[in-house]
């Protein structure tokens, strides 16, 4: 088999996704439960005048990104932490992993 053909075969084989847990190291994605976009961290203000529309947008409307998606994974069969994973929805390649608490703090949340 030529090198090019081998490389092509390797990208066609469906390898399981490995999530590099910041505390526990590389873990099989099967240990996790997928929730969805990390936008879900930013709950709207329920006291706002536009709360109904804001919560509709928050709960039901999706960016549905074709490309790098920032998303929430829950380590159910591990340490039960929430992670924010940046993953390509076109290739399944995982670009970065961080604790959801770190992500929230870096984005202006107090905790």
């Amino acid at each position, binding site marked *: 088999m030529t090198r090019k053909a081998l490389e092509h075969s390797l990208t*066609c084989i*469906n*390898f*399981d*996704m490995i999530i590099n847990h910041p505390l526990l190291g590389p873990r*099989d*994605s*099967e240990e996790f439960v*997928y929730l*969805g*976009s990390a936008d879900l961290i930013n709950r709207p203000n329920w006291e706002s005048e536009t709360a*109904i*529309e804001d919560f*509709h947008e928050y*709960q*039901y*409307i*999706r*960016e*549905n*990104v*074709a490309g790098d*998606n920032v*998303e929430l994974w829950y380590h159910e069969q591990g340490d039960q932490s929430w992670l924010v994973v940046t*993953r390509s*929805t*076109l*290739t*399944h390649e995982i670009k970065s992993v961080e604790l959801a608490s770190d992500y929230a703090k870096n984005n202006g949340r107090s905790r």
Partner: protein
Amino acid sequence: MNKVHYSGFKVLKEALTGHKGWKPVWRDAEPKSSGYDVVIVGGGGHGLATAYYLAKNHGITNVAVLEKGWIGSGNVGRNTTIIRSNYLLPGNEPFYELSMQLWENLEQDINYNAMVSQRGIMNLIHSDAQRDAFVRRANSMLFAGAGAEYLEQDDIKDRYPFLDMKNPRFPIKGALSQPRGGTVRHDAVAWGYARAASDLGVDIIQNCEVTGFNINNGKCLGVETSRGDIKANRVAVCVAGSSGRVMAKAGIKLPIESHVLQAFVTEGLKPVLDNVITFGAGHFYCSQSDKGGLVFGGDIDSYNTYAQRGNLPVVEDVCSGGMAIMPMIGRARLLRSWGGIMDMSMDGSPFIDRTQVDELYFNGGWCYGGFKATPASGYCYAHLLATDNYHDVATEFKLDRFLRGAMIDEKGVGAQPNLH
């Protein structure tokens, strides 16, 4: 192009005259510079059906179907070919029953052999609670005229001796059967609708990717494509699986996530399964194709993706479901597996609606149930496009139903699209 009427006589005549009379099945058209009354984005089953019913039911023939690749290269070529109308909720069941009735007359209507086979579909029952739920569903089906039967344990055992009736976790207690359900040759649906629509004057334009929408003052005037701009009085998007990507070009966000559903087919076997069997409790369903392969599938992969392939854990999950309920499947070798991208909506039900942009319409959100809906989807979408009114059986498929609290959630799992 001269119409060729397909018949047994025609086959015999061509067989005796060297098969010189066959012609291309549809016209490969060029975009018209004068524009169209309706431009349909997406040359899959639903888009081609929409074009056909626009022309046939409403006399609107100045229509183009734009397809990025070749027609039928999306989900109409990547499904498990099952048709059924065994839904529970009033927003859904009459729609799917209309679809079933259209399937029943499809081949005569479009003069094309789509191999519609009403071999029946059977949903296995494993507990008293599940039996109650399925009997309730059966009553809903009977109200809609879809027909439903309850199968006893012994009936199932006699017909399908290979099923594991005494599975310790999921013993088979009975089944809900819809004898009118079955399978259809999926590619032939795309080809048949394309031929019928083309014969009525519809332009089918392949290798024509929509790259943008021409929107001015909140009104859609046409589309920008890889083959130039095309003017249209009305634009109808019909690209389930890619809805997010295409509608983003019009600046519209949807209550939809894209997920991948994998499917599998074994090597060809002698006839063994004359029905569609679904094992909902273990997320596995199976039928046998006319070539003999066992066609089966299960859950979606559960994470957002536009890649038309899934991962190995779901392969294992689906196959273990199969092994649990019909252990003989372990003796068959897997021939192929593939993945299709699903528009997973927030309540598991589809959309056939206007959008906030005038003259831009949307059809999508079919989850993993789009194939069976193909005829009714085209029928009702064409009705909306032609009359600007919702068809009687498609009044609930609106994009704002979540804001109104009027979702159609068959499973009752809420806005968790990977669980529908």
